[in-house]
């Protein structure tokens, strides 16, 4: 034993003391244990041994068991803890022991292991000191601190050491603060600290702990509720860990901490969802931007901030989807892409904040991306314009110009393109070309080519005008005679005859025109080239016609043509020698392609986007001369076709023979080539120049010559006789190969469709900007039903919330078998027929009289074609005897045309299940026998349906109820085109009281269905049972929306009439309708009798 620590000075006294201590301890503990400890402590200096045992003795006063543990662990720890640390360590243990022996046993058992993991002395000391402090309050907490400390320390940055000490101190302090609230909370905090530090920096500890503290709030009993906070500590590290980049994690915490208005549960939920929301945003800088904005917004309105956070991904996605393509007009040219989108999105946020200040509700709707204000602002921020906003204006504009009835739909977006590429392919197709299909004009859903909404609108206008002009000026329509004539001139008699036979072939009907053109082109040596040239010629002709007819559009055309020119491939003039041209250098285009391209550019803008290669100039002058004629006022599509053929002949003659034979044309050769008849035979053999690649259609002129199909638009103003019969006109069905695999906008799924979008359809008058533009048609469900989205008016924000309500349309299910085994539907019909036999007969009579019947004579009428002799005699007698004579002296033949479509819309919300309490006088069978409102409604509807049969009006019966805006159930009891029969009766009998009523949405849907009916009079007859009421749909809001829906219907020229069976209905009906548009029936039992009469009154 060679112990350097052993002090030689007073060994005896130390040894003595040791022995005394050992004895004292042995009195309380197992003496063997003590002896063993002493044996193990042999290497330790005696003075230390004395201290160890002395403290042990002190401890023994508190707890024998703890002392035993202490002695067992002491030898293990003695090499680790310095002499100065030993005291505090045991001191803390003593404190713990004073409160809980068990805890102190644990303390002494575990701590050696733990302290072994903490290398630095100062940190060990600190932890011990902290434990000592906590021990005064809660021993468990002290223990937890010690347990977690090593892991925490390991996760802290080791440099500089002093900073680490400070951090540990903070860590413990934060726990201490939490402990003041609740020690379980603090304990959870300690436990989760290490996982937390795995994902976040120590600097975030404070926010994390503080947020946890604020999550404790009193529950309903007034006691603090710790659960959200505990859950928070337990799971937040993992959630936060999902946020990338990691710097955003503490930002997110800071944000949630700021949301002091939210309930703890919501804040925890938010913290859970936010990482998912953020993950949906692809770029880190966008996420960063979002959180920054969200945080500053939180100062103003936490809920708006949450809204922005949750919708941020969508916002950015929508913004980018309309983000500007590379265009000539950029407002801030010098900024980077990143700066630009930041600035633009900031603008959007700023608008929202201003709105928020004016009206919190509107601001909230804005940040939730619900309101149309948000949409418009987004358009604006993106520097563009949505078709949705201007669809109706454009539709009316196109109609005004062309006189054709048109519908406007958005072009379905293909895979997102980086912009019109003029890269290697040179001629790739921009996917947003406008085109006409039947009566439908397809336009890009969004344009941002120009810097301002105004210019973008002009762009839309030019696209629309050009397409409308294609109709107005008969683009690509060549009549039979001119086509045959042209064929004769160009290709000879034989071909003309073959063409004529194509027209005469009776087996070819609708496709004739295309086939005729096909045959026409088949004779051409270069069909693709001819086709391109024809497009150019037609484009030029239409442009010229537009400019002539509408001088006001010239500026717009210039603007757009200039832009379109910018997008065209450039033909590099510099080193374009003939060899270079031949080699197709520069633009990647062949010579013919270059010439065609330049010709197109000249035809659009009168110039090219780069100086014309001198070598090509003479050629272009020549071609320009040939095209001149199509710009004359009386030029037709046939003229264009002729010019195109001539250009083609000229080009093939000049270029395919090889460049060595190329010589600039002399002025006279222009004249020669205008009469290509002589060269016809020679040309045909020359064939298509090389593998000619077809031209990309220019932006504003759109996809030209797209097939217009059999449903060719019918001009509004012209009579049928003035129209050319389809077989005598032709339209070109030739599209570029890469166009054909691009399907035209699908019917059902498009955003703006004629049927599903009232604002662009000709029949309604709702402003698109007010949000009617969002009726998305979703996939159909089986059974001819579907799901529809409608906007809802929010009075408080003075705006529509778009796509807010979902209508589920379904056929009313036939009733199940009744208890008796009989079909309950049949039972109902049977009962109705017997109970109301007399009434039904009467009603039929009454309704029959409404039927236009030329042979029917109505006697004793106020007016009529014939005098009713009987009545006149009676009147004369009356007068003679001094009575007032009747004025009904005529026989009337009523031949009024009746063209009426009526939608009966029945509210079947829960309140209709209410039974009617009989009045005392007719209270017979007790309450069970009293009918419910719904039963009375059923009977009334049945009687009406039966009666309407007699007059033959188009009648539809719909019932509606629902639960919340996502679920407005719309039941088809009878559709307009369904014949009336037992099945309908059964469905009527199946109407039952359901849930709630969101009236506005139901009215909108019924209106829409009504508008599909071709009838002179369209009537929406609404059978209401009471106030509109649904989840988030009551009071002023519900009333305002319902009124709005009614106004929308009326604007679309649907008449509305409401019958309400609510005794107290008067007041709100008066708010909704003009006095002659509603009636209140305060005794529902009168309904069966009155409904048919009301019907009669309002439809005549």
């Amino acid at each position, binding site marked *: 034993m060679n112990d350097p620590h052993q002090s030689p000075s007073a060994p005896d006294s130390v040894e003595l003391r040791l022995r005394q201590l050992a004895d004292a301890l042995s009195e309380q503990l197992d003496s063997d244990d003590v002896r063993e400890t002493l044996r193990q402590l042999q290497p330790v200096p005696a003075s230390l041994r004395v201290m160890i045992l002395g403290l042990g003795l002190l401890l023994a006063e508190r707890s024998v068991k703890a002392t035993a543990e202490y002695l067992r662990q002491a030898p293990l720890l003695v090499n680790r803890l310095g002499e100065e640390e030993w005291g505090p360590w045991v001191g803390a243990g003593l404190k713990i022991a004073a409160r809980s022996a068990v805890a102190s046993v644990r303390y002494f058992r575990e701590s050696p292991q733990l302290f072994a993991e903490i290398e630095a002395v100062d940190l060990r000391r600190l932890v011990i000191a902290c434990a000592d402090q906590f021990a005064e309050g809660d021993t468990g907490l002290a223990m937890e601190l010690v347990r977690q400390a090593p892991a925490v320390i390991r996760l802290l940055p080791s440099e500089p050491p002093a900073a680490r000490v400070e951090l540990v101190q903070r860590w413990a302090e934060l726990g201490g603060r939490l402990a003041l609230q609740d020690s379980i909370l603090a304990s959870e905090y300690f436990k989760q600290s290490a996982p937390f530090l795995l994902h976040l920096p120590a600097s975030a500890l404070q926010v994390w702990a503080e947020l946890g503290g604020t999550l404790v709030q009193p529950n309903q009993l007034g006691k603090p509720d710790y659960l959200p906070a505990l859950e928070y500590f337990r799971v937040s590290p993992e959630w936060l860990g999902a946020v990338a980049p990691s710097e955003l994690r503490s930002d997110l915490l800071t944000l949630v901490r700021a949301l002091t208005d939210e309930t703890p549960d919501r804040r925890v939920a938010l913290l859970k969802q936010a990482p998912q929301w953020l993950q949906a945003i692809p770029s880190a800088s966008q996420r960063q931007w979002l959180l920054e904005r969200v945080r500053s917004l939180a100062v103003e309105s936490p809920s708006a901030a949450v809204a922005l956070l949750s919708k941020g991904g969508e916002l950015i996605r929508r913004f980018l989807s309309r983000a500007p393509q590379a265009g000539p007009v950029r407002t801030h040219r010098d900024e980077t892409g990143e700066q630009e989108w930041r600035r633009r999105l900031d603008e959007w946020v700023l608008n929202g904040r201003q709105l928020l200040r004016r009206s919190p509700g509107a601001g909230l709707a804005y940040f939730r991306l619900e309101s149309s204000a948000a949409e418009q602002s987004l358009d604006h921020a993106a520097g563009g314009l949505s078709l949705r906003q201007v669809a*109706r*204006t*454009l*539709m*009316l*504009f196109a*109609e*005004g*110009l*062309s*006189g054709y*009835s048109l519908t406007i739909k958005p072009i379905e977006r293909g895979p997102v393109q980086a912009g019109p590429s003029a890269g290697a392919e040179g001629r790739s197709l921009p996917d947003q070309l406008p085109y006409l299909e039947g009566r439908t004009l397809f336009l890009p859903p969004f344009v941002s080519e120009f810097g301002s909404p105004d210019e973008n609108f002009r762009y839309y*206008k030019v696209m629309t*005008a050009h397409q409308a002009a294609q109709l107005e000026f008969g683009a690509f329509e060549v009549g039979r005679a001119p086509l045959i004539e042209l064929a004769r001139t160009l290709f000879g008699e034989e071909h003309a005859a073959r063409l004529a036979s194509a027209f005469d072939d009776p087996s070819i009907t609708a496709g004739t025109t295309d086939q005729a053109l096909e045959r026409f082109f088949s004779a051409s040596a270069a069909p693709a080239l001819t086709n391109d040239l024809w497009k150019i010629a037609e484009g030029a002709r239409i442009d010229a016609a537009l400019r002539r*007819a*509408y*001088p*006001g*559009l010239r500026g717009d055309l210039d603007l757009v043509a200039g832009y379109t020119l910018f997008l065209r491939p450039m033909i590099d003039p510099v080193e374009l020698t003939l060899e270079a041209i031949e080699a197709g250098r520069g633009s990647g285009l062949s010579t013919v392609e270059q010439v065609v391209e330049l010709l197109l550019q000249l035809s659009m803008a009168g110039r090219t986007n780069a100086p014309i290669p001198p070598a090509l100039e003479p050629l272009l002058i020549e071609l320009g001369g040939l095209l001149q004629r199509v710009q004359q006022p009386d030029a037709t599509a046939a003229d264009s076709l002729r010019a195109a053929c001539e250009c083609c002949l000229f080009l093939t003659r000049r270029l395919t023979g090889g460049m060595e034979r190329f010589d600039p044309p002399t002025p006279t050769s222009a004249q020669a080539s205008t009469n290509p008849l002589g060269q016809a035979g020679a040309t045909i053999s020359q064939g298509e120049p090389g593998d000619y690649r077809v031209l990309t259609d220019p932006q504003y002129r759109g996809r030209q010559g797209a097939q217009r199909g059999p449903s060719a638009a019918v001009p*509004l*103003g012209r009579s049928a006789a003035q129209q050319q019969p389809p077989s005598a006109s032709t339209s070109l069905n030739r599209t570029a190969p890469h166009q054909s695999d691009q399907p035209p906008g699908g019917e059902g799924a498009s955003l703006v469709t004629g049927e599903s979008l009232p604002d662009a359809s*000709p*029949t309604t*008058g709702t*402003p*698109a*900007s007010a949000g009617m533009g969002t009726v998305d048609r979703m996939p159909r469900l089986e059974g001819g039903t579907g799901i529809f989205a409608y906007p809802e008016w929010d009075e408080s924000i003075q705006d529509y919330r778009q796509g807010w309500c979902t209508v589920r349309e379904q056929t009313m299910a036939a009733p199940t078998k009744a208890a008796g085994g009989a079909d309950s539907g049949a039972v109902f019909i049977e009962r109705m027929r017997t109970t109301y036999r007399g009434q039904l007969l009467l009603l039929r009579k009454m309704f029959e009289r409404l039927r236009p019947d030329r042979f029917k004579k109505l006697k004793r009428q*106020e*007016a*009529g*074609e014939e005098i009713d002799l009987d009545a006149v005699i009676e009147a004369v007698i009356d007068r003679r005897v001094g009575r007032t004579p009747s*004025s009904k002296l*005529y026989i*009337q*033949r*009523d*031949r*009024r045309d009746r063209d*009426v479509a009526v939608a009966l819309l029945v509210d079947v919300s829960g309140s209709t299940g209410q039974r009617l309490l009989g009045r005392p006088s007719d209270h017979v069978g007790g309450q069970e026998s009293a009918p419910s409102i719904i039963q009375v409604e059923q009977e009334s509807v049945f009687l009406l349906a039966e009666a309407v049969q007699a007059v033959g009006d188009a009648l539809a019966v719909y019932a509606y109820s629902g639960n919340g805006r996502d679920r407005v159930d719309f039941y088809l009891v009878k559709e307009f085109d369904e014949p009336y029969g037992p099945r309908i009766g059964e469905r009527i009998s199946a109407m039952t009281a359901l849930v709630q009523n969101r009236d506005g949405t139901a009215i909108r849907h019924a209106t829409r269905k009504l508008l599909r009916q071709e009838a*002179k*009079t369209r009537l929406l007859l609404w059978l209401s049972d009471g106030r509109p009421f649904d989840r988030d749909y009551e009071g002023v809001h519900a009333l305002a929306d319902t009124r709005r829906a009614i106004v929308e219907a009326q*604007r679309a020229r649907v*008449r509305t009439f409401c019958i309400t069976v609510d005794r107290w209905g008067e007041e709100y009906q008066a708010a909704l309708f003009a006095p002659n548009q509603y009636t209140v029936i305060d005794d529902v039992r009168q309904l069966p009798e009155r409904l048919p009469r009301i019907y009669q009154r309002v*439809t*005549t």
Partner: protein
Amino acid sequence: MSSRPFAPEADIAQYLVQQAPYYVPVHQEVELFETAYANQLPVMLKGPTGCGKSRFVQYMAHRLKRPLITVACHEDVTASDLVGRYLLHPLTDARRILPIEKKAELLEAGKEFMLVISYNPGYQSVVKELKQSTKQRFIAVDFDYPPPDVEARIIQHESGVSAETAAALVKIGEKVRHLKQHGLEEGVSTRLLVYAGALIQRGIPPHSACEAAIARPLTDDLEIQRSIRELVSAVL
């Protein structure tokens, strides 16, 4: 019950049309009207508002040298106020009598008496359509907006604008009338085009004139107004 000839209750001469009204015949309406007059047949002028019906009647009254008494039937006068009962039916058929119930009088129409009614079909609702029994008592003369060249002449004459401006206004009229089926209840009338011309003639910039005389009177729908504005600026 007395029966006496249709006696004037006021000085009928004051209803004579003194100055020849400006009227450009469009079809055969003048001949048709004269024949009806000669045969004592009542005439019904059908056509959209502001297309020259009243002007035509004035013109014919002057031409036939007959006093012209006009009864305005505004929106709230119902058919039975006027044409039902004893009022018009017996007067318009072969009987040519007008019973006046209150006075227990029966007036007989003189040879030169002629009844002309004018109405705008189309935008009345089903309820307010004229009864067949009323309609079928008249010779009907259909009016429509004059053909472009005639309309241009009218506008030029009435407002004093240049032939060029008149032609532009006619073109605007044509375009706006295309909207009738969908946005507008009725196309723009010749009357409004004349108004627009008058404003332009008095120095109002053409765009503003069309705004005030065409876009705004025609509709309250802001989008339709905008479309009209676009049409106007396309043409001008």
